[in-house]
């Protein structure tokens, strides 16, 4: 890596190079870890996420621009307007590679542009452009507009109307027509608050690779591991993430009807073979250097959604707009997926926020007077596109209410509706029912991003079907180990999908070859623990305490009614004690203990 960041002040339209301390790389690697460490340096954790003082840190990982397999992710770190926590967000694509080729390890955007603008970064040069003509455009049109003015190799990251209107779960869209996203936590609203429509990055330089021969050897070893696991690789290529829907339903962990149950009666609509036959047109890699492309183009050929085409939908979108809303119309989910991307909305939060309102409507808490006349019933796929538009533009009472996300909307509406606002810290959950998967319950309650399903390693995938899944003792150690692995992938910038096949062995080999350091698995696990703790330290300084590691009462008080996990609820307080003790955090507050920070070499002054 290059050892320096470019800091751009959008208020003054100036930029300055800044050195990154050498020890940051040894301690935090890159990507998620390095970005979170830099976030500590650049903002006060109590900063208003939508104020000029917040920063957007696009950060590089050690594998960017090395052509390492699975170096597929770009990383963005900021403070989330949805949760008030530190937030890292990932998008597939080439932005990180381009940034690394510009000669920087991080691009840090601070301040606020007076007028709508977009930023063009070409190697070491920065140019501020007027965005008044594209402000208000959807992401597809704006991308097309900008693409006419920049080279085909440039990466464009941009916001849609949702980001401009500061929707709390607006995303940033990348990669042109694929419309990959920095999806979660409201990063698009942070960009919108800075009056920044788009960022364009193209780099032509190279990065230093310490040992080219060792990198080639690591690539060969990775390929062999992949070839030895056809039971994983082939279904991913054929069906993508949709391949798991029926298994998750059988296991009773496919959230359905706003998490009332874990089994969807119309699962036949989402059987992978049916999706492949009826909707999938082709598969394609979502980023360079992927040896096992698992994303797919889906198209609707006839009916009321004819012509809709999406690079997806992935599992989480199908859960959010399918089983969770009891909507079996896959064609509507294809249309919704692409429309959310055009508007610049996170599909998971959008689907679950609509789910919260749907339950309010079904219970009579919201009426048609509150929903601007929309009949918000489960299974009503025809309401979705209209609601998405209203949310993105904050149109009408319902659009403005739902643009705040389900936690804030529930706080406003009250009447017990907090029970089915399926969030932690304000971020809506990914699609893993956790009443029979207590490692996953820890994931949701303790994630420093909020109700994220994967930043601690998606424990449900590993524990489901085992007796330990519903035992408190040992869950802390189990989740902590999964979290370290995930953190290393996010900090290396590797796609985490092949993690079950590659483990940390491939990461260790690739990272050691590229950096020239001996990054064995023990060293990587220590980095993982350090990153987990600086994330925890950030949210502690922002004011989060034990009582904020919470789950909605539906998961604590309402036993799961069906499936192999029926009768189960989450014993959250016991899991808190277990996880805090495992991590070396104060059992009363959840703040990392001084001895934990000292052991990890974390500077107590940060």
């Amino acid at each position, binding site marked *: 890596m290059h050892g320096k960041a470019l800091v751009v002040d959008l208020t003054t339209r100036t930029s300055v190079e800044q050195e990154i301390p050498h020890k940051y790389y040894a301690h935090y690697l890159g990507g998620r870890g390095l970005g979170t460490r830099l976030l500590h340096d650049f903002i006060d954790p109590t900063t208003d996420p939508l104020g000029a003082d917040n920063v957007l840190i696009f950060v590089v990982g050690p594998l960017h621009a090395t052509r390492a397999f699975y170096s597929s992710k770009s990383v963005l770190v900021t403070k989330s307007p949805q949760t008030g926590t530190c937030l890292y967000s990932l998008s597939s694509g080439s932005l990180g590679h381009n940034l690394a080729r510009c000669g920087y390890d991080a691009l840090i955007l601070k301040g606020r542009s007076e007028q709508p603008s977009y930023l063009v970064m070409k190697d070491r040069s920065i140019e501020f452009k007027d965005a008044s003509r594209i402000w208000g455009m959807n992401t597809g049109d704006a991308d097309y507009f900008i693409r006419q003015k920049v080279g085909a190799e440039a990466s464009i990251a941009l916001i849609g109307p949702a980001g401009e209107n500061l929707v709390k779960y607006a995303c940033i869209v990348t990669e042109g027509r694929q419309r990959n996203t920095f999806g979660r936590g409201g990063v698009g609203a942070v960009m919108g608050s800075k009056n920044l429509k788009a960022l364009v990055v193209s780099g032509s330089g190279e990065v230093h690779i310490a040992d080219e021969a060792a990198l080639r050897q690591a690539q060969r070893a990775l390929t062999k591991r992949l070839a030895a696991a056809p039971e*994983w690789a082939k279904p991913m290529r054929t069906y993508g993430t949709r*391949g*798991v829907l029926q*298994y998750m339903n059988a296991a009773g962990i496919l959230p359905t009807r706003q998490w009332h149950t874990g089994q969807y009666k119309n699962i036949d609509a989402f059987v992978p073979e049916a999706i492949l036959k009826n909707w999938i047109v082709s598969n394609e890699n979502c980023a360079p250097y992927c040896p096992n492309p698992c994303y797919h183009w889906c198209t609707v050929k006839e009916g009321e959604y004819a012509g809709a085409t999406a690079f997806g939908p992935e599992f989480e979108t199908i859960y959010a707009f399918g089983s969770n809303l009891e909507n079996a119309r896959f064609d509507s989910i294809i249309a919704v997926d692409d429309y959310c991307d055009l508007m610049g909305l996170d599909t998971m939060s959008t689907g679950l926020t609509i789910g919260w309102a749907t339950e309010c409507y079904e219970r009579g808490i919201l009426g048609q007077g509150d929903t601007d006349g929309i009949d918000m019933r489960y299974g009503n796929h025809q309401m979705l596109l209209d609601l998405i538009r209203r949310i993105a533009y904050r149109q009408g009472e319902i659009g403005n209410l739902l643009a705040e996300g389900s936690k804030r909307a529930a706080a406003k509406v009250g009447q017990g509706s907090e029970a089915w606002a399926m969030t932690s810290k304000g971020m809506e959950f990914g699609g893993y029912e956790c009443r029979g998967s207590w490692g996953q319950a820890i994931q949701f309650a303790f994630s420093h991003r909020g109700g994220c399903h994967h930043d601690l390693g998606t424990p*449900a995938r590993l524990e489901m079907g085992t007796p330990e899944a519903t035992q408190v003792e040992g869950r802390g150690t189990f989740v902590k180990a999964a979290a370290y692995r995930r953190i290393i992938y996010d900090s290396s910038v590797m796609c985490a999908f092949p993690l*079950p096949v590659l483990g940390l062995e491939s990461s260790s080999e690739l990272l050691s070859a590229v950096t020239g350091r001996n990054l064995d698995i023990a060293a990587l696990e220590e980095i993982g623990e350090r990153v987990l703790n600086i994330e925890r330290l950030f949210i502690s300084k922002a004011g989060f305490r034990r009582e904020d590691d919470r789950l909605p009462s539906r998961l604590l008080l309402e036993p799961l009614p069906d499936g*192999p*996990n029926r009768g189960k609820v989450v014993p959250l307080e016991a899991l808190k004690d277990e996880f805090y003790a495992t991590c070396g955090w104060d059992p009363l507050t959840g703040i990392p203990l001084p001895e934990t920070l000292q052991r990890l070499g974390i500077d107590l002054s940060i």
Partner: protein
Amino acid sequence: MRVLLAGSLAERAGQREISLALAGRTTREDLLRALAARIPALAPYLRLSPETGAALPLLVIAGGKWVHRGETIAAEAEVEIHPPIAGG
């Protein structure tokens, strides 16, 4: 015992449904061993995962309930076996 295979398990086995003549109080391990012996293509599912160091967590459900390690299955039960959950 009627065994229903899902997803890539069925694909590897070349069939979705298998009947196994197993005695009463068959354990999960007995069942998987019998399956691997009957259909060698399924044997990779019994090896160790590089990530967890444990056998891949196949989802085994009989009569709507989990069948965990060491637990037994009635000889007349209908058993669903799903591959591990990955991706997402």
